[in-house]
C-alpha cells in the first residue's frame, strides 16, 4: 500500500520558533506538495517540488521555506513561527504524469503556534 508519512500528527510551538515539518513518501513519486488547510478556505498550496533540490512557490509561500535533498523526503520549514500559521498542514505526492491518478496525501500535521 502506498504511503505518505508525516512525522507528527500534532505539534505545539511557540511564536518565533523555527519549525520543521517532515514528509516521506515510498512511491518513488517525482512531485511533492505542501498544503495548508483552514476552515472555509480549502487547501492552499504553499510550495511544491518536482525533483530533488528543485522547489517552486505555491500560492501562499510567505513565511515558509522547503527542502528536498532526497526524492522521498520533502520538508516544510517555518522560519519564525507566528500565530497565523496555526493550521493543518498536509503533504502530498504524485507521479510526474498523473495518468488518471490523484494525489496521495499524508495524514496531516495539526500545528498550533502559541
Amino acid at each position, binding site marked *: 500500500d502506498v504511503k505518505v508519512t508525516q512525522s507528527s500528527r500534532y505539534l505545539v510551538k511557540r511564536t518565533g520558533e523555527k519549525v520543521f515539518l517532515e514528509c516521506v513518501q515510498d512511491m518513488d513519486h517525482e512531485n511533492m*506538495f505542501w498544503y495548508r488547510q483552514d476552515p472555509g478556505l*480549502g*487547501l492552499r498550496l504553499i510550495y*511544491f517540488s518536482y525533483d530533488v533540490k528543485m522547489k*517552486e512557490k505555491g500560492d501562499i509561500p510567505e513565511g515558509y521555506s522547503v527542502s528536498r535533498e532526497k526524492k522521498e523526503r520533502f520538508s516544510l520549514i517555518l522560519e519564525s513561527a507566528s500565530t497565523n500559521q496555526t493550521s493543518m498542514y*498536509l503533504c502530498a505526492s504524485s507521479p510526474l504524469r*498523473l495518468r488518471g491518478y490523484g494525489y496521495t496525501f499524508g495524514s496531516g500535521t495539526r500545528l498550533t503556534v502559541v
Partner: protein
Amino acid sequence: GQQVMQIPQYQHVQEGEDFTTYCNSSTTLSNIQWYKQRPGGHPVFLIQLVKSGEVKKQKRLTFQFGEAKKNSSLHITATQTTDVGTYFCAGRRIIQGAQKLVFGQGTRLTINP
C-alpha cells in the same frame, strides 16, 4: 490566477436524501479531480474527469464535467451515514512543467440518520 469555486460550503441532509456539490472555474480546466475527506482524516482521491461532457459513476456517486470544461458536479443518490465528510474538487494547471491542483473550498456534508 485560476480560481476554483465550490458551493455550497455546507449541506445537511436526512439519510436517504440526495446531495449535490458544484464546482466552477474562472478558466478552462484540462481536467478535474474529486476528493473526499472524512472527519479527522485526510483527502482521498475519488476520480478524475478529462473529457468535455464526461460523466462517470461510482455506485451511488455521479460525477460530471461540463461541456466547456469550466464546471463540474458530484451527485450522491440516497445518502448514507458513510458519506459524511468534506468533498473537494480540484482543477489541474501546469506550472514549470509540474502538475498542480487548485482546490475548491470544499463542501461539508453532514447527515441525519
